């Protein structure tokens, strides 16, 4: 019972980012799953399950509010189900992946419903009522996350994983694969949103430069970041120049 409540809280907070000072790492299975492991009193087994899940998501990214799978749900639910069902930690990803994909839907719901509170907040802003505005930022979204994530987590842990395991097993592989494709496509949205903030005709070529340098030269992200920074600095100095002559 206690552990079910604790897991429900973890599940709630891992999506309701009350403050990234605390919750930023709760996005990642390694930490959120470890917390679940502690809550369920099986730290080592749970940690390993969490690590197995984590490893399959090292390339995961969220940009522009979108994500290629709900990593928070994957970490928390995947670890919990592994422990509840007593399965070997190395099987954790098998449990986690369907959650991650279904979780896209719940995240979608969360992101859509939250728009309601912001309209309320608009009203308080107009009135200059800062306290109520603050309330709008924190409370309704928390309750929403509890409903969407906390309650299911409670049920999963409290009523045992049998049903869930069977339910998951019932999902045909073709659906899992289909959701994986959706997940694989999802970063395109986040990246395209950043693109649409950034791209002016003049410089959009750099997007393609980054893309094809990565594709053809197999450079990793760090390398591209370094070269991008060098190029940025050089452009800065070489175009400043225009007004002041060539020499510094």
């Amino acid at each position, binding site marked *: 019972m206690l552990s079910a409540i604790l897991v429900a809280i973890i599940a709630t907070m891992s999506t309701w980012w009350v403050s*990234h000072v605390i919750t930023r790492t709760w996005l*990642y299975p*390694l*930490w959120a799953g470890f917390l679940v492991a502690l809550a369920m009193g099986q*730290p080592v087994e749970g940690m*390993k399950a969490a*690590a197995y899940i*984590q490893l399959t998501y*090292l*390339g995961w990214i969220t940009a*522009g*509010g*979108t994500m290629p799978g709900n990593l928070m749900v994957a970490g928390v639910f995947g670890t919990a189900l592994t422990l509840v069902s007593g399965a070997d930690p190395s099987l954790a990803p098998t449990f986690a992946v369907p959650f991650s994909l279904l979780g896209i839907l719940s995240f979608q719901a969360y*992101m*859509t*419903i939250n*728009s309601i*509170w*912001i309209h309320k*907040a608009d009203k308080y*802003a107009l009135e*200059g009522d*800062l306290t109520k*505005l*603050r309330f*709008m*930022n*924190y409370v309704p979204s928390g309750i929403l996350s509890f409903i969407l994530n906390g309650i299911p987590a409670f049920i999963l842990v409290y009523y045992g994983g049998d049903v869930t395991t069977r339910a998951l097993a019932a999902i045909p592989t073709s659906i899992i694969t*289909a*959701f*994986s*494709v*959706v*997940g*694989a*496509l999802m*970063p*395109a*949205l986040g*990246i395209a*949103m*950043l693109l*649409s903030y*950034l*791209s*002016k005709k*003049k*410089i959009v070529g750099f997007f393609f430069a*980054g*893309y*094809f340098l*990565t594709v*053809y030269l197999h*450079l990793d*992200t760090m390398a*591209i*970041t370094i070269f991008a*920074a060098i*190029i940025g600095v050089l*452009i800065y100095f070489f175009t400043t120049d225009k007004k002041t002559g060539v020499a510094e």
Partner: protein
Amino acid sequence: MADSQIENMNVQPKVKLTKRDLIKHWLLGYSSETCYNFERLQALGTANAMIPIIKKLYKTKAERAKAIQKYMVFFNTEPSYIGTVIHGIAASMEEQAANGVEITDEDINSVRTGLMGPMAGIGDTVSQGIVYPILAGISCSLALAGNIFGPIFFEVGYKVIMLSTGYSMYMLGYKKGKTAVLSFLKAGTLNRITEIFSVVGLMVIGSLAATRIGIVTPIEFSVGEVGINLQKVLDSLLPSMLPLAATLGVWKLISNRMSPTAIIAILFVVGIVASLLGILAPLAQ
């Protein structure tokens, strides 16, 4: 903006933000994504973070209402590592505006909107493309060996880097904003700075696009007895063509002002249908 005004600001500040105010603002910024939503993303969270600043600088309800409202517009950036620089700048601009320097609401929001894109691109790349996979990779190997320091190292390492970077960027923004805000507003200067950061941001998200959108086509067909693997053909033509096509396609939809929710719906339908028809598959890692 006359010279007298500049002196004005330098000589006689009426209200000054304290270090405490700034730290509060910075920390509250970590709640930018609490009431996260597709309509305006970090708008409400950012407004919430401004509360201590606004309370300090403006005393009447009307002033406060006016001040807070400008933060209720669409805003989105990487909020934890790099994007904090924007909040620092905003704080310093508010401070100066409250002290009589002629800075309009539009000035403040154009700085914020100009920088949110590059900082998102750079911040996402640094935090999620570099710091996260390296730390998580190391920590997982510890964890899998049964070592409890695995997750702890991850938690501590990640937070230390995040908070020290986030703090430095916030304070950098505040300082630069304070000294440079006038030149900042000079025609061109802001654009120029935004442009340079955008160049960096564009290159790094180009790299992200190439590595993080994992779709391939599983189509194989045979003409006579020759088997043709379409993905190989595409790769021989232009490697990683599909992720690029997906990105450009979605970008097109965004440019046509389609909402994220609608696009996500499309991605769901396209992804599921294409997968079931055997046209697309996830890239095996």
